[in-house]
């Protein structure tokens, strides 16, 4: 074989590899990056960022006369440059990703994507990946300036690396938050309000990232790298960020899925998996560290997530879509499992209640097994508090669903959460106001009996004197609410099979 032929073969192999790589790329990433590199907005933002950084460094160097004797010049300049880079990244990347997606969603562009063979998860992962690449681009552009600060002294390389990593994750989390907000199917006015809310979140994120970064730079990471505590801290932070990004991804995927699809699956599957692995990690951590703190953190996080899940569940569609029912398995065991992971109000409630009960069960077994481990009171107290809170929210939710089905039929299922919120507000305030009127002239009321009049408030478990009253009322109400909704729930279970498709078509299920 001649040298020329060998060269040609090698070029062809490279071309084939490039072609395969090109095919493998997520189409959304390709499109987003093509648009980004051709966008005047992106190019201008990058140039402005670089110009600001050059000006900032120049001003610092010119105004600091004794720089050669200063031992924290590098740290100060790094902090200034990092602050500028983070501000631009946290403002620009999330806004660029979020606003674009919101615009695409409000027009028909996303609809056109749904009718291709691309999956909703590819759309969201693509948007996310494009945001990550944009962030890498901005960070890379700033890297020469940031590296320069090392030579000014006062900052070590591990600290720089860790701070940059924290900044990178914060930008990614902000971008994913904006993508999630952009996915919400709301009108223009509400979208604007969400944008403002997102901006406030970003400002909070910026301030907390800067505070963490500042602390790390001033203390220095280099000396801590060898300690277990440091890596434990890094692990917890990484898991926390990972959980939030994952949850936002799952929620965004669910939101952009077509209405006929099983929208609940990604979210419930993700939460169940994280609940299992998070639980195992928390129990192991609790056992190793001889404290219940990790379990407290685990159950509290998930009970709060389940509280939101109750509101979401009652606002879901009444029946799963035809395309979901069609794919149900014949086996009743497998079908039962699918029931928990399918879109539908009854399905959502069944999953949420099971998860709340399972969380309480795990905690109960754990504190029974290890009664002498630290933070026992915190574990028992917080678990009971949050479980009773969810019991009350469950009662409110079932009552709201019942009211909507029988008397508020003009209100769509998707607005049941609003009825539920109104009931929570009425239940929390009205009894208290009645008590206030009854005991208007009784100054002792505030010290003694007001807790009785807080009986409708889901968050009142902290008033220790009346706990048995709250639990009794909550339980009695739950029994009543279940009894009133039982027929509806059983119909949903009975209708959860592929054969019911034709019956449902006949009976014209109104939304």
């Amino acid at each position, binding site marked *: 074989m001649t040298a020329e032929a060998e060269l040609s073969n090698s070029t062809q192999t490279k071309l084939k590899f490039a072609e395969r790589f090109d*095919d493998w790329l997520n189409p959304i990433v390709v*499109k987003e990056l093509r648009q980004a590199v*051709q966008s005047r907005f992106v190019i201008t933002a990058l140039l402005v960022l670089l110009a600001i950084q050059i000006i900032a460094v120049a001003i610092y160097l010119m105004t600091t006369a004794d720089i050669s004797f200063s031992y924290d010049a590098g740290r100060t300049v790094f902090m200034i440059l990092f602050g500028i880079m983070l501000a631009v990244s946290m403002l620009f990347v999330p806004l660029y990703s979020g606003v674009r997606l919101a615009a695409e969603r409000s027009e*028909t*562009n996303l609809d*056109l994507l749904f009718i291709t063979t691309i999956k909703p998860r590819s759309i969201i992962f693509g948007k996310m990946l494009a945001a990550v690449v944009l962030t890498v681009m901005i960070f890379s552009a700033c890297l020469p300036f940031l590296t320069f600060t090392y030579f000014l002294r006062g900052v070590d390389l591990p600290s720089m690396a860790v701070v940059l990593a924290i900044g990178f994750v914060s930008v990614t989390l902000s971008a994913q938050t904006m993508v999630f907000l952009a996915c919400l199917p709301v009108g223009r006015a509400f979208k604007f309000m969400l944008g403002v809310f997102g901006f406030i979140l970003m400002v909070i994120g910026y301030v907390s990232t800067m505070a963490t970064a500042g602390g790390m730079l001033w203390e220095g990471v280099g000396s801590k790298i060898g300690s277990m505590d440091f890596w434990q801290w890094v692990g917890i932070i990484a898991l926390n960020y990972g959980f939030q990004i994952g949850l936002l991804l799952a929620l965004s995927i669910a939101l952009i899925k077509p209405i006929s699809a099983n929208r609940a699956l990604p979210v419930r599957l993700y939460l169940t998996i994280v609940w299992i692995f998070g639980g195992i990690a928390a129990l192991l951590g609790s056992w190793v560290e001889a404290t219940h703190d990790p379990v407290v953190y685990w159950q509290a996080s998930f009970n709060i997530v389940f509280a939101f899940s109750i509101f979401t569940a009652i606002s879901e569609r009444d029946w799963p879509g035809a*395309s979901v029912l069609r794919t149900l398995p014949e086996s009743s065991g497998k079908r039962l499992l699918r029931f928990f992971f399918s879109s539908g109000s009854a399905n959502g409630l069944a999953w949420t209640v099971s998860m709340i009960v399972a969380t309480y069960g795990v905690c109960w077994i754990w504190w029974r097994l290890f009664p002498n481990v630290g933070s026992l009171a915190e574990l028992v107290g917080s678990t009971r508090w949050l479980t009773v809170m969810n019991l009350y929210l469950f009662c409110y939710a079932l009552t709201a669903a019942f009211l909507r089905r029988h008397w508020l039929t003009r209100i769509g299922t998707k607005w049941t959460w609003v009825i539920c919120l109104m009931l929570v507000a009425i239940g929390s305030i009205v009894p208290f106001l009645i008590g206030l009127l009854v005991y208007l002239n009784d100054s002792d009321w505030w010290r003694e009996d007001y807790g009785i009049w807080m009986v409708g408030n889901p968050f009142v478990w902290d008033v220790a004197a009346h706990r048995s009253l709250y639990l009794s009322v909550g339980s009695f109400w739950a029994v009543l609410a279940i009894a009133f909704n039982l027929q509806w729930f059983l119909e949903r279970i009975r209708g959860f099979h592929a054969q019911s*498709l034709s019956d449902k078509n006949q009976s014209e299920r109104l939304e």
Partner: protein
Amino acid sequence: MKVEVSNLKKYFGSTRAVDDVSFSFASGQVVGFVGPNGAGKTTTMRILATLDEPTAGQAFIDGVSVIEEPELARKLVGYVPDSLPTHRDISVHEYLDFFARAYGLKGAKRRQTVDGIEEFTNLSGIRDKMLVALSKGMKQRVTLARALLHDPPVLIMDEPAAGLDPRARIELRELLRVLSGQGKAILISSHILTELAEICHGAVIIEHGKILMAGGIADLLSDSVPRRTVLIRVLSRQEELHRELLQMHGIETARFNGEEIAAEVSGTDEACAELLAVLIARGYRVVEFKQQRANLEEIFMNVTKGVVQ
């Protein structure tokens, strides 16, 4: 290949957007979907394109249910919405390449498909132009090209001619003719009824979510209008014929313009044939007896009441 819509219903709360709609059409047919604004056209089309779910009823494309098997149905449908692409910072070729990737086309096949579609829709010359810089007509071509990328046997087009200038409309019409000739089943909604009549084999007229009339264009034209306009020219005694027609049973009006008489005959083709026989029997030397065909616009005005939901 057949598209079948059967007892389709879509309710938004108490509003019945689509109310028991049934119709069908097959390969090679272009069917006009006609109705006033808010009649339920877009909702029906979105259901067919798997973008919405009906409250009840079924829709099949080549036997595949768009409700139960949307993923499979999507491969069979090309959807052209009533809005034009608004993507910024992307060229025509990049836009089509993106959708080709989204349809799962890979490597050389993707390149060939995109090039072929660009050539077919006459976009090759402007493939590197930015989308936002294109005229409405060109954007509509891009949308059509996008819908054709996966070579679907069915095209659903929602108001594709809206806002286009006459040249762009004629070009679109020609493209549709070619596509129909290739065997594609096309459902097209439009307000420009004269154009629809020229390219459609059939029409479905919908109002208030209900189908008022459906069938082949020729059948609709002959069945829907309860009277016929006939142009009559005789060699002599024209004024006498005019007076006679005005008194004749079954003739609603008759206008004489000095050359010919336009008479409106109540009834169908039978009544026209009878009138001709009467004229000849009465000794009129008829040189021209031409029925003026009703057009789709006239049918539309006759059957719809302009009810908007």
